């Protein structure tokens, strides 16, 4: 067993997910199968091999820092589930 129910709960917390009883029943076994499979990579000796994060990157993409038009506030707020015309409204934090 690579991953226990307790660990799945912990990881779900990190990912900001609440798992239902049914999911806690189902996910640990499925995740364990997947993690056991990917352990196949341990067969390979990768000492000294540089990791690839982007398959094709010529150079970093720099650009001039120029002032450009941005999205109007009204448009930026339009999809907000709760907004007051000036800002997104969320439950009180403090």
């Amino acid at each position, binding site marked *: 067993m690579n*991953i226990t129910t307790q*660990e*799945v709960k912990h*990881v*779900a917390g*990190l*990912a*900001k*997910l*609440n*798992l*239902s009883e049914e*999911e806690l029943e*189902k*996910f640990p076994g*499925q*995740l364990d*199968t*997947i*993690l056991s*499979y*990917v*352990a*196949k*990579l*341990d067969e*390979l000796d*990768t000492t000294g*091999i*540089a*990791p*690839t*994060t*982007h*398959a*094709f*990157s*010529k150079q970093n*993409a720099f*650009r001039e820092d120029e002032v450009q038009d941005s*999205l109007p506030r009204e*448009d*930026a707020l*339009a*999809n*907000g*589930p*709760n907004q007051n015309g000036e800002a*997104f409204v*969320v*439950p009180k*934090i403090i």
Partner: protein
Amino acid sequence: MNPYELSIAQARTELDKGTLTSRELTTSCLDRIKAVDSTVNSFLLVTEEEALQQADIADKRIAEGNAAPLSGIPLAVKDLLCTKGVTTTCGSKILENFVPPYDATVVEKLKEQDAVLVGKASMDEFAMGSTSENCAFAVPDNPWKAGYVAGGSSGGSASSVSAMECLGSLGSDTGGSIRQPASLCGIVGMKPTYGRVSRYGLVAFASSLDQIGPMNRDVTDAAMMMNAISGFDPRDSTSVNEDVPDFTASLTKGMKGLKVGVPAEYFTDGLDAEVAKVVENGIQIFKDAGAEIVNISLPHTEYCVAVYYLIAPAEASSNLARYDGVAYGYRAEDPESLLDMYKETRSQGFGDEVKRRILIGTYALSSGYYDAYYKKASQVRTLILQDFQKAYESCDVIVSPVTPTPAWKKGAHGDDPLALYLSDILTISANLAGIPGISVPGGFSSAGLPIGIQLQGPHFREDSLFKAAYNLECGTGIANKCPEL
């Protein structure tokens, strides 16, 4: 012949001659959608009114003699491409009511040509899946056989083109999501080189793997659409400033001087005999066209699925952190606190497969596991990339199957996600290596299901792929074949 049966190239000729208007063509596609989409379920949204308006604008432009190659052509886009003012759900409940305030670059490029967008195509939620069954809304059917999967994640983009509801579509491919449904639905689908097409406005799944590409009834149409969507975009920092050739110029008969590589590792025991036969026939077509066939090796192929199912979920877990119920999308009702709002929004808004991948990705990136999983996978990714670099020293194009089997029945994989992941084995490596790949119809199984042939090429050599694909299409003679619906 109904207008909706025309290829893009054929429709272009008719539109320019004045023997057909875009309004007639668009109406024909919209009528086709009304007739068959309740069966095929390609679309999450049909934008009839906007489409007819766009058609009229295109007709005016065509009459003025200023037509661009896609002016007046009815197309669909996968529902993870942002369309200004038109709902973009990504197949997820969490984005059910999301209306983007801007267009994706590729959508902008289609609109600049006055192409006609008929609707948003169904897909697996956040492009995670190989059958489109993970869509929170309508799941497409394979137009060739009822009850069979259209493939995924760009299943609706594939079925809409195959069922002739539009003349072409855009999909996205993170591990095979254009090529696999194209193969299962009997159409052409290209995943371009990473960086060839801007990802601006594409809802992100795994940013180092995602690419947008065309899905079409024949190779010529795919080349026309690639011409339209390719090119550098300063709004996507991974977009590459490479010259874009006219891809239609590659569509010539004869393959003398081209070397076609056959990778031993792609022809294993798990390969369906009918699929193998179709690919062998394809290799014979290349030989007859004058190509030289060479045996090559991609020794790390067996590790692709493992690498992919660490890297893609890791990137996804990070990308999907933005769905928190604050600025857009679904928000859980009556949260007790901000944290509760985040958690309930995400738990209610995401489906099973998305949750599984977020969990795998979060685990692989979490403290103490990063080196063992994510770093290790990124190192093996280097080995896979090196396999291809070495292979392309001795060939120009690599030929292989797209999927180990033709389409399967819906629901076949039930609660065994790994079994379904393993079916991606032949398409995943192109994404890991960032190289271009194309699926071209190769034949049919005895059950009447389409079987595609995959071609892969070196970075930015889509031109070689188009040339080989065109010769393959000429050899098989099965382009533009329409299923009976």
